[in-house]
């Protein structure tokens, strides 16, 4: 990764800008936002029991997010590279003066920003909680940080699977499966089952790889650098893998 930060940034920004406007120029963005807000509302107020909980918190909202994002984030990320390959524009992109890592980071940042916008639009739930009671807004803020990181981790995985294929459906399914694995290794109904015959030490070690384990910390209002490091590692690894996949494809 040669060149200073100053020289690297302009192409990243240009690519990110194009990618972000691609969401809003097609109906994709609006369909996504409406579905996200409807489903998150539904999960929060009915299945999550927002009112029945008898507490002023966003737990009902955040508890469902790993499952909601499991489908929505791969849907937002599946087109990132498959579309470039399907249209053949990847040939335009990589004959412009830009390093592959800049293109990968630019596209990722644009999609991530889009997901953060979606998250931010859930603000009426925060207002409702504050209106009805006296929630700990610090915990809510840390919950949002965790949710943004979770979205970033899923997105980086979707970015990687999107580089595998020109078929968006295949990219979507692969991403959902991989993200599901990252959930399940720490999903308590499953880990409890495993703990019956595996040593608790092993189950706990495997659970450390789960997004849920690290996501939960943020929901308790605990900002632990290890949780942060976990999400950053998943994102960095998946984006690095994206670069390897793209390079191998061009080498033929």
């Amino acid at each position, binding site marked *: 990764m040669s060149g200073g930060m100053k020289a690297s940034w*302009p192409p990243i920004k240009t690519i990110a800008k194009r990618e972000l406007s691609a969401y809003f120029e*097609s109906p994709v963005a609006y369909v996504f936002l409406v579905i996200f807000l409807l489903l998150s509302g539904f999960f929060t107020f009915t299945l999550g029991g927002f009112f029945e909980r008898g507490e002023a918190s966003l737990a009902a909202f955040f508890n469902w997010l790993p499952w909601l994002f499991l489908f929505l984030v791969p849907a937002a990320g599946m087109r990132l590279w498959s579309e470039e390959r399907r249209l053949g524009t990847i040939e335009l992109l990589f004959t412009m003066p*830009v*390093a592959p890592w800049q293109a990968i980071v630019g596209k990722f940042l644009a999609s991530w920003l889009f997901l953060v916008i979606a998250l931010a639009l859930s603000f009426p739930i925060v207002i409702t909680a504050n209106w009805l009671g006296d929630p700990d807004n610090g915990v809510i803020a840390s919950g949002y940080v965790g949710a943004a990181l979770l979205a970033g981790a899923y997105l980086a995985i979707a970015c990687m699977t999107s580089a595998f294929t020109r078929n968006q459906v295949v990219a979507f399914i692969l991403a959902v499966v991989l993200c599901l694995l990252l959930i399940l290794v720490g999903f308590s109904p499953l880990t409890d089952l495993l703990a019956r015959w595996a040593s608790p030490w092993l189950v706990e070690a495997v659970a450390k790889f789960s997004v849920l384990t690290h996501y939960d910390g943020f929901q308790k209002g605990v900002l632990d650098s290890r949780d942060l490091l976990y999400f950053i590692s998943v994102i960095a690894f998946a984006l690095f893998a994206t670069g390897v996949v793209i390079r191998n494809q061009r080498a033929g």
Partner: protein
Amino acid sequence: MIKVENLSKSFAQKRAVDDISFEVAKGEVLGFLGPNGAGKSTTMRMITGFIPPSAGRVSVCGLDVQENPIEVKRRIGYLPEAAPLYTDMSVLAFLKFSAEMRGLHGEDRRNAMRRVVELCHLESVLGQTIDTLSKGFRHRTCLAQALIHDPEVLILDEPTDGLDPNQKHEVRTLIREMGESKAIIFSTHILEEVEAVCTRAIIIDRGRIVANGTPQELKARSGSGTLEDFFRSITRSDTVREAA
């Protein structure tokens, strides 16, 4: 300005380009001829740095493509085969994106956009989504992208493909004019185009150069004095190759 030395490319089973060497100087327009699948596009993709060669090297303006990919790409304008485009964008947004990717901003960007819009006659479709354009306009939009930074080197893969006779004539005139101050490689199936535009032509067959000379020289080498007869005498069509 373009120097290709012993360039080869192998895909899984097939040797697509086999030990090709040639040079293109400033002021030259080199025509790339050959049957489908002869290795024209693969060679062009290696020159632009889109795919790495299996062996050999390419330098553009004295810079090695593998060692200085970004610097080389700054100096090349490239029209890929089939003119791929971001179909959701408007022509204007796409040209703006291309200009910014080439490091053009502010007044420079606006001037560059004005210049290519005029050159490629895109005034009437600027606000239109690329999806809704006819093939001729799409092709010219992609050509505009290749010209936006006024590059020293132009690589054009079938620039007149899918254009009507008037548009073909315009693009040829454009290439000939630009050829005076740039180094240009363009591929084509149309032999008359070579005579009309090129200062030199290379014929590729099965990954190898089978002829290299001015259109007049190549014509002289065929008995009947036409480029078409010469082309047919030294290349084999796909169907003949399948049978062989």
